[in-house]
């Protein structure tokens, strides 16, 4: 069974939600890994949870990029291991340069906490390989700085894939569906290879019907199936 590793930093606050979702709901092995750890040996999928690491000081995610665990994280990301950063985890991936772009305050200037719909734009990543292109997932967001900005070379799609976009119930990309004002309705983006995904909505908060949606679970089932098929092929990621 794939081993998940949930990293946590001073100020992370979704680490136990992720742990619960993976360990209890999916029944997969999962370790909580403190940011001072210098090895990620034995981990098949790295999860960087949401929260306010280092109090969002300077810029959200800016200080966490210098934590010791980020060195093995970089090696894993470059060697093709699936890495998912959720909310503040996404901000950390962007600040550490593992994903392109940056975040500014939500255009509403408000902390936005609500359900959103996101449309799957790219199924060639470990986290979306069992989903359909165009499939709409119901996932919640909770952030103050979810306003994603692409780098100024904006039109070049080299080195990145847009994986999730905010949309209406039927899948239409509208500004009403975009909770933060993010460029191009971007809710989730991956590196060129597709193994490193950052997303603002919280899949771990939509794992059980009791919570209002089970759609987040689909993304983790997808990565489990991806890892299993890689292992079956005898490939090491």
């Amino acid at each position, binding site marked *: 069974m794939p081993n998940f590793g949930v990293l946590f930093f001073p100020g992370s606050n979704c680490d136990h939600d992720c742990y619960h979702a993976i360990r209890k709901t999916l029944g997969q092995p999962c370790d909580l890994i403190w940011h001072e750890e210098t090895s990620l040996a034995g981990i098949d999928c790295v999860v960087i949870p949401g929260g306010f690491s280092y109090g969002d000081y*300077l*810029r959200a995610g*800016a*200080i966490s990029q*210098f934590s010791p665990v980020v060195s093995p994280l970089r090696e894993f990301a470059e060697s093709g291991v699936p890495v998912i950063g959720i909310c503040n985890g996404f901000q950390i991936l962007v*600040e550490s340069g593992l994903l*392109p*772009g*940056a975040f*500014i*305050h*939500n*255009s*509403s*200037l408000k902390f936005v906490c609500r359900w959103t719909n996101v449309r799957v734009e790219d199924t060639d990543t470990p986290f979306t390989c069992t989903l359909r292109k165009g499939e709409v997932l119901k996932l919640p967001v909770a952030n103050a700085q979810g*306003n994603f*900005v692409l*780098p*100024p070379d904006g039109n070049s799609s080299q080195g990145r894939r847009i994986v999730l976009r905010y949309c209406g119930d039927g899948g239409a990309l509208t500004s009403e569906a975009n909770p933060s*004002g993010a460029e191009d309705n971007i809710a989730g983006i991956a590196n060129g290879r597709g193994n490193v995904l950052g997303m603002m909505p919280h899949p771990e908060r939509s794992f059980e019907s009791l919570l209002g949606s089970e759609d987040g679970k689909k993304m983790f089932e997808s990565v489990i199936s991806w890892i299993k098929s890689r292992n079956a092929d005898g490939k090491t990621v």
Partner: protein
Amino acid sequence: MKQFSVKIEVKLKAVVLDPQGKAVLNALSGLGFSGVSDARVGKIVELTMEGESSEEIGRKADEMCRKLLSNPVIEDFSVEIMEK
């Protein structure tokens, strides 16, 4: 070794929308201040540094800005150095 006061200003690039600046602009006009056409909000970081020359301090401050104090994707920075 000399002591220097280093003042680093970090601002969003002109092409990046500044939601905080927009809110400040709206608040100012709400308070009755007329004639304000734009507002941008930035950050100031003040450092006290030791070194041999202002050139050396400038090089270090520049590197600090690129590595941590600013995000080059969305922000510009400027450095002001004064010997104490």
